[in-house]
């Protein structure tokens, strides 16, 4: 009996004070670095290099954002546009390619289908550095250095395998009878896929779309290796370039950090439910 009561006590502690303390510490730890970068991005130059350092800007200003956005050496407006273009095109193309392949793998019987699925899964385990020397020489030979195409094609190497793999699961969970009855009514297979299956798989497709967009947005190594001019840099490559300057401008850099973070944070906030479902469904399937 006394043992039972001690269990209750532990349960109450775990459900009350311990829970709230734990949540507070965890959230502070996760958010602290963002809060610091946000605070620094609003500081004046004098305050950034003042001792002792301050945590809340005395005279908040958007000067760093204006300077980063319009800078001629590191034009974040241009980087932003580049990132947006590369990520959007990668996302749309990935969805088209993967929906088609995912549908086929879910519906048709192929020789070596399981092997193919395993290859898609294994591709994720390949180190990105493995692709850098060969892709660089390949894009160089094709005259694609310093073009959007080189970045978009290279991004397919990690977006396509994962999204195909995720979508196969989604399509398999949709009953075959749905498109079979449409095909009975005279629709072609492709038409049935577009009109019936794609809308039903929309949450899964949305999840893979966000995955493709966010991972392209974050991509760094391809973007620094396959571009050389300032006008072609993405946000990630531009930030790295800025940090490599002779004197690091922490204010502008923090503004650049916020500019790079906010779009993916917003996307993630609105669509996290789908993304998490897609990611974990894959993992739970094993």
């Amino acid at each position: 009996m006394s043992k039972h009561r001690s269990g209750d006590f532990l349960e109450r502690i775990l459900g009350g004070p311990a829970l709230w303390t734990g949540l507070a510490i965890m959230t502070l730890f996760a958010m602290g670095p963002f809060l610091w970068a946000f605070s620094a991005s609003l500081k004046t130059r004098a305050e950034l290099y003042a001792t002792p350092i301050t945590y809340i800007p005395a005279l908040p200003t958007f000067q760093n954002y204006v300077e980063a956005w319009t800078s001629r050496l590191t034009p974040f407006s241009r980087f932003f546009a580049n990132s947006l273009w590369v990520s959007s095109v990668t996302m749309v193309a990935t969805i088209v390619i993967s929906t088609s392949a995912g549908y086929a793998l879910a519906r048709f019987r192929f020789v070596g289908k399981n092997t193919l699925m395993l290859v898609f899964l294994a591709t994720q385990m390949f180190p990105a550095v493995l692709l850098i020397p060969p892709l660089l020489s390949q894009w160089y030979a094709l005259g694609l250095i310093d073009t959007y195409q080189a970045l978009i094609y290279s991004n397919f190497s990690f977006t396509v395998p994962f999204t195909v793999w995720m979508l196969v699961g989604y399509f398999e969970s949709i009953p075959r009878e749905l498109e079979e009855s449409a095909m009975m009514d005279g629709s072609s297979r492709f038409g049935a896929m577009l009109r019936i299956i794609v809308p039903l798989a929309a949450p899964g497709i949305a999840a893979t779309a966000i995955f493709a967009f966010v991972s392209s947005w974050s991509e760094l190594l391809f973007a620094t290796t396959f571009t050389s001019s300032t006008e072609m840099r993405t946000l990630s490559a531009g930030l790295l370039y800025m940090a490599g300057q002779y004197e690091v401008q922490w204010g502008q850099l923090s503004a650049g950090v916020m500019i790079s973070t906010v779009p993916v944070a917003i996307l993630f906030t609105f669509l996290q439910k789908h993304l998490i479902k897609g990611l974990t469904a894959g993992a739970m399937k094993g």
Partner: protein
Amino acid sequence: MPVPRGFISRGTRETLANYAYLLPAAICLGGTVLFPILKAIHMSLYQNVLSRPQDYHFIGLGNYLRMIHDPTFWLTLKNSFIWVVCSVSIQFVLGFLGALLLNAGFKGRTFLRTLNLLPWIIPGVVVGLVWEYLYQPNYGPINDILRRVGLLRVPIAWLSEPNSAMASVIFTNIWRGIPFFTIMILAGLQAIPDKLYEAATVDGASVTQRFRHVTLPMLRPIIIVATATRIIWTFNYADLIFVMTGGGPANATQITSSYTLLSAYTDLDFGYAATLSVILLVIMLVFTAFYLKVTKGVESVSE
């Protein structure tokens, strides 16, 4: 499909049409994964330093022999091991705790979950640069806070001291990876039927007993998948190291994948970089084969 009738049978035509759905993905992966990998293996067999094009010639396994005799390679392998084991184990423990906290029913859970998952979604270069700033000896808040609470007298240049550099990049990597485990384990926790807990409570099981005999066994499959995925990812990705320390000081934070980048970017030695990356691939394939064997075991246990 404009294929003449009678020339190819209906069944074959259908099969061909089916393969057409796979064609775009096949072209993509052929051009950006398969061909480059073969090309990397090919490159690894040549002396290929971009700054000395006149020296380009076939050297067979010369680069691999050089690697075996390269003490830096062995150092990076050891560093990779430390980097992976420390990062993933602590990410796992803290991510698990986070999932347990977020699994409790309370108001505003979705909001807190979003905040806690953000470190995982933001670009690696952002993580690296923000933490470089946090660690900065003169203007960074970490030294400032440690000094204010009296734990530190003289500021430490966390990323440029050989003794603290590795621990510092690992700490950042942990911060970044916790949410991954939180998401995975949270999904696993939410998939456990309440009935199991109720039954255990009726049988008089305490909180700790329920955790050990219900929660842990139910989470086993997802824990194995999540940990393996994270180990592979951590081993392969050197973006934080690349941004924060470049592998320095004196290779103290150099892991094998950042060493590969260094060989390509700084030494312009593409033959050697390709060799190192092929070895990375081999290590990962061995690990993956092992992992698939283990997960097959999990499946047969859970069935």
